[in-house]
């Protein structure tokens, strides 16, 4: 499958030419973006009747800041050489990234309805060969950071100023290859690498910390040589500040954002549901969830 540009070409969005709004205005704009990402994800969940909606809702604020504030990209050209790269290691978060890519204009809005269907460019686990803006084939967990290390080395060869962002989950910390990536990123002084670990404390067999104890995470990351921040990943102000700091940090170190998030965030009745890697949503509940999301937006 080949990449197809969106029907509508939009101007280049870069850090340099982005209008410098006040922090308050920027925050309001990002809150709207996070709302739209959550809404897109719920609509896709409704199409498929299932999906990793708990994760999509928890990571929406991080993706809103990534695509709405931190990253440079061209909506009409997913392979624009000067773009920042975003590598989704946890392929089952594809529903969240599609929601963000649709909002960013990289995937047309109307494609949302094809999510998880036969011959769709939006398969349930993210694959680079299917989807514009999907930079790696994730899903075999623990690979993203290793690929990101190579991407960063490759960008440095080209004297590129682009950043590589990679998102992975707390469950992936169980994979040895993640620690190979952590160690090598510091060894190679990859100051063009920004990794985000989503700590929602849920993985397939239960709470991540019980499946395999991973704390103290900040101490571990710092000991591995990373510039490390730990934030509430559903506090937009904190997420904005963390991305800003990760980008502007001048040390010769890779940058880690540990984002503590809440599964189902933005839809109170899903957030309150018994915590599970795969939140069950009944057929009639998708509309209720959209209504609840809207209520939160207008509150």
């Amino acid at each position, binding site marked *: 499958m080949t990449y197809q540009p969106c029907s509508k070409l939009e101007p280049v969005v870069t850090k340099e030419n982005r209008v410098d709004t006040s922090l308050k205005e920027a925050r309001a704009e990002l809150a709207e973006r996070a709302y739209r990402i959550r809404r897109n994800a719920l609509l896709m969940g409704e199409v498929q009747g299932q999906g990793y909606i708990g994760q999509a809702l928890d990571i929406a604020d991080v993706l809103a800041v990534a695509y709405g504030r931190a990253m440079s990209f061209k909506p009409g050209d997913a392979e624009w050489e000067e773009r920042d790269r975003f590598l989704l290691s946890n392929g089952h978060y594809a529903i969240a990234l599609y929601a963000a890519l649709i909002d960013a204009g990289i995937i047309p809005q109307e494609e949302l309805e094809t999510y998880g269907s036969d011959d769709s460019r939006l398969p349930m686990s993210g694959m680079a060969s299917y989807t514009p803006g999907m930079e790696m084939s994730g899903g075999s967990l623990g690979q993203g*950071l290793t*690929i990101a290390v190579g991407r960063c080395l*490759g960008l440095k060869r*080209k004297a590129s100023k682009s950043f590589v962002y990679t998102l992975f989950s707390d469950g992936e910390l169980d994979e040895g290859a993640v620690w190979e990536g952590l160690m090598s990123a510091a060894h190679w002084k990859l100051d063009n690498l920004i990794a985000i670990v989503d700590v929602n404390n849920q993985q397939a067999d239960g709470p991540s910390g019980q499946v395999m104890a991973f704390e103290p995470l900040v101490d571990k990351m710092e000991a591995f040589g990373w510039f490390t921040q730990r934030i509430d990943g559903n506090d937009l102000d904190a997420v904005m500040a963390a991305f800003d700091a990760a980008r502007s940090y001048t040390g010769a170190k890779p940058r880690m954002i540990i984002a503590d998030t809440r599964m189902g965030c933005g839809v109170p009745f899903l957030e309150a549901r018994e915590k599970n890697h795969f939140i069950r949503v009944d057929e009639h509940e998708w509309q209720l969830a959209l209504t609840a999301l809207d209520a939160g937006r207008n509150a």
Partner: protein
Amino acid sequence: MNTNVQKPKLKTSAMIASIASEGQRTQLAPFGHALVELAARRPEVVGMTADLAKYTDLHIFAQACPERFYQMGMAEQLLMGAAAGLAHEGAMPFVTTYAVFATRRAYDFMHQAIAEEGLNVKIACALPGLTTGYGPSHQAAEDLALMRAMPGITVIDPCDALEIEQMVPAVAEHDGPVYMRLLRGQVPLVLDEYDYKFELGKAKLLRDGRDVLIISSGIMTMRALEVALELARDKIDAAVLHVATIKPLDTATILREAGRGGRLVVVAENHSAIGGLGEAVATELLRAGISSPFRQIALPDAFLDAGALPTLHDRYGISTSVMTETLKGWLG
């Protein structure tokens, strides 16, 4: 009279730095030198290894092009993932480690990060098949089976220094991932006597013969050529078809030679009897309805012994002398 005189036991260190037998013509580090030559013409070429540069001849490239060499530490999964990342950014990584570590330890990373995206990564692996006496930890008896089963990747088993030298620029011309077995150190030089030219995807008839057709790859072609000379003393006429590219298989040439009839077909491989060249050829013969008598010389489906390579090659039937006797037995 002392009746306890025994053959002195060989040491495991025999053949450890080179597969060459005593007195054989060799060439030093053909892979490393060929890569340096290629890199001079192709600025996108980079070298990567997982703490085995010295033992895969990549140190020659590292010395010549230090700014294009990436030491990834003893971490094969990282090695493959990072190679995929570099390839995505336009580099052409030549990645080295031992065959066991690439194929058994980092298989999923080659599968998902490299092959699934068709990335331009060239994976060159030393100690293929039974070319070390260190035991199963280092003996890659099943590497070809594993790599043949992976979609979208070209698989090569070169015979000698000449072939390695020609293979390096040839795989660079090919757009896509490649797995190639590697011989390191003092590598035997054989094929120059047969006016050989490596072509990706092509099997080559090195000598013709009426009585038996030996189809082989890698170091077993070197052995097959020696066996053919031995058999000639007994007026047995052996043909040798060298199949350097294991995947995609040159089915047309194999079927043409095996289909000539009147000859025993023997596949000789430095690999487990399961999933390698032997089974690949047998499948094609069956599909084409060619019913020539068929035999396989291969490593057993077993965890192989540690010890000296000459001893082990005799024990498992892939030395020139044992192969010669085996063939004489079959040809009765």
